């Protein structure tokens, strides 16, 4: 089973998914991400899905749940890098990414995290 690496950048956790994941790999990622949040007091998480050609309802649920779980643990989550085809398909499926900030790129995701966690 491929383990998607979890990196730390500017005190935030960054996950870059380079290919379609099996359900088990997705669940494992969620688990490891939350574990990491307990060990590293991180202010935010960016999940980069630009390597994914297909994002279905199941994976959407994993993303939404992960964001909600991270929030309970004190971290905001940004899901970034959906390509145009995936974005259009998800809306046609009627899926909503409630509670998840979605953005264009890793850079933008980090920018957003900075803006929501700053005290100004």
């Amino acid at each position, binding site marked *: 089973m491929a383990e998607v690496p979890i990196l730390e950048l500017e005190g935030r956790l960054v996950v870059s998914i380079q290919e379609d994941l099996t359900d088990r790999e997705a669940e494992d990622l969620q688990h490891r991400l939350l574990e990491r949040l307990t060990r590293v007091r991180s202010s935010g998480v960016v999940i980069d899905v630009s390597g994914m050609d297909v994002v279905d309802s199941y994976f959407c649920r994993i993303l939404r749940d992960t964001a909600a779980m991270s929030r309970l643990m004190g971290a905001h989550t940004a899901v970034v890098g959906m390509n145009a*085809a995936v974005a*259009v398909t998800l*809306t046609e499926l009627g899926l909503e990414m409630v509670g998840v900030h*979605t953005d264009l790129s890793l850079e933008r995701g980090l920018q957003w995290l900075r803006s929501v966690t700053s005290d100004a």
Partner: protein
Amino acid sequence: MESQSFTLSEDRAAAIRILAGALRGDESWLTSVRTALTRDLPPEVIPTDEAEWTDSTRESFERLLAGAEDRDLTAYFRTQRERIAEMAAADLSLRTITRATSDLRDPIVAHLRTVIADIADQRTAVDALDYLLRESLIIAGEVYATEREDKVEDEFRLAIRRLSTPVIQVWDEIQVLPLVGVIDSTRAKQMTEQLLERIVEEQARVVIIDITGVPTVDTAVADHLLKTAKAAGLVGARAILVGISPQVAQTLVRLGVSLGDVETYSDMRSGLEHALRQLGYVIERRVV
């Protein structure tokens, strides 16, 4: 075209055998041909490795010989067609290919005159060569006609798609999409797909969709617009709807349509002002 067959008469097959025999025996012609080709064709087409080029030329040659034996050059010309198609796909011009093909003639004819003693056989071999070159040129013409056609058709379709959904970059990170005419589900799909591509391409943060030119805005149209706004949101762009006339406002409320949290304004100016403000711009007027 591809199923064209090249069966040979006995005379022609014999002529090609003479030609092949002359070229096979003494391979000095390979160097002069390579010089001619390197002069006319870009390096990507001629392998820099001379041995590799020699091998592939020899292979092609063997195929020619086998074809002559069978009195059928269909397989040989099929490979020629494939090679020419590769060059066409690599954007080589037809003129380049034509020039290269004609430039092959001189070095090979010179070689034939040297190695073939019998004048009649010389003439036969040159005829065979001309036949091969001529057929290759005809194939090149055909390939370019279809290849270009496909390319032109694809580019055309792409251009039409883009023109149907004219997204304008009005400021850094602000795009405007003016919609004119009826929005049915097909048009809505195309619009959403095109818009999303442009948002991602130009990294827009705000997209102002102007519906002034849309005659009817009912539940279906509102649903399309809402879906488009949601898709834009998934890639980090906020959609603002402008051009809401009093009639449209009344219809939407009476139908109980909700546009969610999509900002709406009656005019472009307001939409633009809000877009700029959202991105942190302050507009200041200096008295002239």
